[in-house]
Structures are given as C-alpha cells and as structure tokens.
C-alpha cells in the first residue's frame, strides 16, 4: 500500500477533506538484500554485450582489446591492456594502464587509480561499465530468467509462418523482439483457394507470461474449428476470443487484434480491429487507406459486440499489419517519429539496399537512430496479385 509521505500527525488533521500528496517513483520500492550476501560486479551498461557481468575480486580484472586481457572487448578505441578493476581492502578501484584514449569518469580522463562506489560508471572507448553491488542470488536469478526468455523467444519464432514467395498472395514479415520479449504474434493461412486470412495480435505487458498468452490465442486463430464459428467472419472470431480470454480469468491480460479475411476473387477485405490501430492498404500507385473500426481490446468487456469493416482494393495492392512497437519509438537522434511518419515510409521507403519489410525496419532504425526498441517490432506485408 502506498502511504502518504510527509504527513504531519500532530496537527489535528483528521478532516477527511484534507489534501494529501505523495510522490512515488518507479524502482523506489525494492527489498534490500542481506548485506553480507552482496558481491561486487563489473557490468557492461553500453557496448557490444550489454549485461555482460564479471565478479570483481582481489585479483584485478584487466580490460583490453585482446588477450591476455581478462575482459576482452572488440573496440578500436580500446588499448590492448586498457585499465584494470579490482578490490583493494574490500573497496573497488579502477586503474588506467596508460591507455591511448584514456579511462573516463564524470567526463574526465582519470590518472592512476580512482575509487569506484556502487553505481559509479566509467567509459572505455565506446563501452560504459558500472560497478554493481548486489547479492549472488539476485544475479543467478537474473541469469536464469534471461535464459528462459531466450527459450521463449526461440519458441515464439518457431510458430511463425514462412514467408509466401509465390502464388496469388506474397507475404513477407519482420519481427524483432524487444529485450524483455513483448507479446506480439501473427499468422496467415488460406481458408480455401480464394480466401486468405491474416492476423496480428499484441498482448499487454512484456515477458514470458505475455508471450504464453499470445501463443494460446494464436492457437485458436490458427485452427478455428469451432462449431458455429465462421472463419470468414473476423468480428465473430473477435467476439469468440473475447469470451474465451477475459482478463479476470487470464492473469489480468488484455490483447489487441487486427484480423482480416481477404476474398481474392472480388478483391475485398473484411476486417476487425479490436483495440488495435489501423492496418494500411497501399495501392500500386501509392494511395493509402487506413482499415480501422473502433472496438475495445479483447478481454476487457464481456459480451462486447465487435463490428467489422470492409474495403476493396486494386491489383498489386499491399496490406500492412503492424504492432504499435513500430511507431511508438523514442528516437535517439532528436528526430520525430510517429504513426504518420511510419505510414509515409510504407509508401516511399528510402533506399537502404534491402527490400521488403526488412528494408522498412532498417529505415526505421536509420530515421530514429536506434538499433533496438523497447517493444516488439512486428510488421507483416501481404501483396495481392
């Protein structure tokens, strides 16, 4: 429970109309680890392998570009034997070994040895290191979690369909999972030879629980063998999923879904967007149409009547489904980035050498100055002949 802070108990203020204010910040509440269990670690905060961690002991760890350094980092700005970090009388010190480009702390080059308190950082080339003082148990738990996340990422990937390179529909996609794995999933299949279904869903939150939930929902979408359920009716499918996956009985999880059923003979798409932003049709001449019907997230309101929309398209049009992770990116280069700019990119991708969705991903990276994103980046493009 959050209690009001700085509250004066002595001033007869039992009056219910009194105004109380509390400021709480994320990360403020953290169980303190037993002090005697804590160990000193050196961890890479920025650089080639963020999260790489070694224990700091009496025997100093030498950071350098090549062996015999203990901590080798492939960084042209780093000297062969750049600096060393070790314990002296139980305290952590960093010592520059006469490197060419220096070891930097607080923006200045250090000379000789410097004390490194818990949380202090130093810079070597393009790498940032931090002194972490935390319990061994915590670090072990983190490692186990990282490995579970990696397994979940591999599993999610194994469920994704192969690109369609020939036939009446060509489909190509890119999914770059966020570091902590978002809840994005997608799929497509032919219901019969003239009907193509494509869907993308995004579960709220991150981590293995969100990914597991996404997999459960996907399994319904992939094999909709439910009596009385017409696979050609995406609004009915959304309503069915909504009844199956109410948040109260599914760990409080909600999801957004965009689901389209394309009639290739009449060139029409019937779709539902359930708490999901629009998908976009881009015609061969560059004209765009946002396919969007206002509906709520799945799992939020029992009995909600989902409505579908319909659109016609011309030969050579492409249908783009994507998660909010493609436009909710905070640029690292001071540029602006939003949905509108992303859609412009679908119409006129700038030259990167790579075609298709991978090329669009490269474009977003270039425009936002980011290589990794805080949410899953998922884009599925289907082109109709």
């Amino acid at each position: 429970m959050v209690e009001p802070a700085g509250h004066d108990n002595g001033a007869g203020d039992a009056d219910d109309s009194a105004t109380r204010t509390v400021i709480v910040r994320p990360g403020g509440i953290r169980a303190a680890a037993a002090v005697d269990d804590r160990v000193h670690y050196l961890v890479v905060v920025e650089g080639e392998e963020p999260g790489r961690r070694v224990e700091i002991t009496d025997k100093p760890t030498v950071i350098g570009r090549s062996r015999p350094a203990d901590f080798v980092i492939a960084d042209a700005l780093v000297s062969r034997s750049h600096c060393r970090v070790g314990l002296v009388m139980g305290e952590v010190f960093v010592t520059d070994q006469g490197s060419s480009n220096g070891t930097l702390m607080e923006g200045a080059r250090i000379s000789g040895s410097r004390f490194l308190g818990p949380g202090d950082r130093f810079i070597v080339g393009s790498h940032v290191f931090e002194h972490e003082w935390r319990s061994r148990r915590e670090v072990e738990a983190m490692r186990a979690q990282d490995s579970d996340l990696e397994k979940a990422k591999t599993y999610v990937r194994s469920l994704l369909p192969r690109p369609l390179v020939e036939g009446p529909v060509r489909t190509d996609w890119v999914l770059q999972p966020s570091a902590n794995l978002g809840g994005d999933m997608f799929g497509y299949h032919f219901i019969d030879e003239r009907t193509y279904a494509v869907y993308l869903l995004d579960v709220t939150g991150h981590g293995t629980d969100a990914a597991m939930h996404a997999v459960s929902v996907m399994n319904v979408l992939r094999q909709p063998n439910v009596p009385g359920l017409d696979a050609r009716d995406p609004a009915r499918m959304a309503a069915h999923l909504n009844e199956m996956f109410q948040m109260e009985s599914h760990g409080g999880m909600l999801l957004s879904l965009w689901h389209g059923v394309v009639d290739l003979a009449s060139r029409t798409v019937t779709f539902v967007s359930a708490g999901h932003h629009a998908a976009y049709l881009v015609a061969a001449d560059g004209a765009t149409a946002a396919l969007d019907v206002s509906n709520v997230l799945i799992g939020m309101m029992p009995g909600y009547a989902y409505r579908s929309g319909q659109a016609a398209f011309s030969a050579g049009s492409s249908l783009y489904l994507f998660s909010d992770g493609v436009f909710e990116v905070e640029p690292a280069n001071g540029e602006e980035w939003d949905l509108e700019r992303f859609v412009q990119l679908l119409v006129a991708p700038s030259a990167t050498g790579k075609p298709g969705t991978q090329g669009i991903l490269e474009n977003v990276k270039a425009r936002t100055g980011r290589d990794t994103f805080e949410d899953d980046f998922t884009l599925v493009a289907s082109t109709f002949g």
Partner: protein
Amino acid sequence: MSISYADAGDLRTIEITGRLDVDGAGSVASQLVELTEAPRKGVIVDLSSLKFLASIGIRALIQSAKAVKARGGKMALVVDTDSTVMMSIKATGVDQFVPVFDSPDDAAAAIA
C-alpha cells in the same frame, strides 16, 4: 515518471506525469491500482501531463476502473484531446469503458 494523489472529500484525483513506458511502468501501474482501491466514491485519473502511455498502463487503467465500478464508485479520465495518449485511449477502446474528459472540473462534475 511520477504518480501523486490528492483527496477532497469523497473524490480522489490521481495524477500521472512523464512517460508510462516499459521501464518502471510496472511499479507505477501497481501503485495506480492500489491508489484506486481506497474507499472513495469518485476517482479521477488525470493523464493530461502524461507524454506516453504503454499497454501495461492501459491494463492498469482498466483494472482500476473495474475495481472502482465493482464497489459502486465512478471513475473518469482526464486526457488532452490531441495528445498521443488520447490516440492510445481511443485505439484500445478504453474510452468506451471509462468516460474521458479534457478538464478535471468536467470530470468531477460528471462523476459527482
């Protein structure tokens, strides 16, 4: 990112500022749910100074609104009309579940 609240009689106003994104959103989201658990009839969640609302924040808003409704109270949101937060609120359909206003006074009048 910060969360604060003020009580006036039977009305609690909770304000969230900054970016409610992945880093740290979990703790702010759970604090929001806790703050709406207080036995007040009316709860206003003021998001007009929020720059960004991630899906985990959406989830916390829905959970809070359900809890407030379940105990017979009323909840309303305050959101800037042309903001990206409003875009998220509309895209996810939160506005079909919790009434949204562009000023705290309108919100207070509506749930009084």
